[in-house]
């Protein structure tokens, strides 16, 4: 898929990234892989002591999934800025889908840049992350 500035317009959608269902192994692996050892995501006793029914996913796991959506679309050296707001907890067994839409184009520092609006949505429609990224085209 081309990301040349000729082929990208406001409204262009990135190819969505559908993830597997999140299970306890996903969370344990991400705790180790990311270095976020907060037990709330891997120890049900810890989660229950804080009033949760069960463990839930690390927010940064979903941000990393969205990062994959971006770098599937443009090589990483073109990513200038990337931010998210975590809007809901991702429960166990949720199935996230990452989507992105180009919302504006601009020339900055001599390069053509696109701003992408990003979402992570669960199968039940819950939006767990809202974000944006700025990438250079061409």
């Amino acid at each position, binding site marked *: 898929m081309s990301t040349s500035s000729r082929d990208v317009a406001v409204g262009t959608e990135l190819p969505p990234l559908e993830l597997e269902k999140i299970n306890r192994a996903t969370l344990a692996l991400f705790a180790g892989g990311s270095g976020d050892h907060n037990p709330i995501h891997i120890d049900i006793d810890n989660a229950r002591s804080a009033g949760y029914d069960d463990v839930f996913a690390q927010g940064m796991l979903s941000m990393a999934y969205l990062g994959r959506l971006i770098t599937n679309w443009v090589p990483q050296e073109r990513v200038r800025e990337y931010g998210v*707001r975590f809007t809901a907890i991702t429960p166990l067994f949720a199935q996230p889908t990452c989507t992105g839409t180009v919302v504006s184009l601009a020339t900055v520092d001599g390069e053509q840049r696109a701003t992408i609006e990003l979402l992570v949505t669960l199968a039940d429609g819950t939006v767990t992350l809202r974000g944006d990224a700025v990438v250079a085209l061409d």
Partner: protein
Amino acid sequence: MIDKKHIGMDLGTMTVDVERGRLRFFAKAIGQTDPVYTDLDAAQAAGHPDLPVPPTFFFSLELESRDGFGYLETMGVDLRQLLHGEQRFTYHRVAHAGERLTLHTRITDITSKKGGAMELITRATTVTDENGELVAESRGLMVVRNPEVSA
């Protein structure tokens, strides 16, 4: 309530070595299928000197560089009541395995909402390379729930 005296707290400067094995483990943990992030040949074919540091991995380096969430414990935060509110990165260039990066983190703001039922901690980190050049900036908002405070 978190003492506002912690605004401006300097969490110090830490140097971390970016390791290929760590990047591969991270890639596996996020289900990464793009070989650029795991296979040195694929990375080099794409023009990288070594495996690239993926866009959100700077947060992991932050955790590594300052003893995890130790700074929150210093502020008296119960980790079980912690939620990540926002996270943002600005990139100046791609970093790679084999680099030694220096992270400098400060607490830039502490505010409360809903009559103290939620407290917000803003943290800002700069990532620089061995030449002192800026590689990336990271800004995070941590949310601390105080369930005993009724809004």
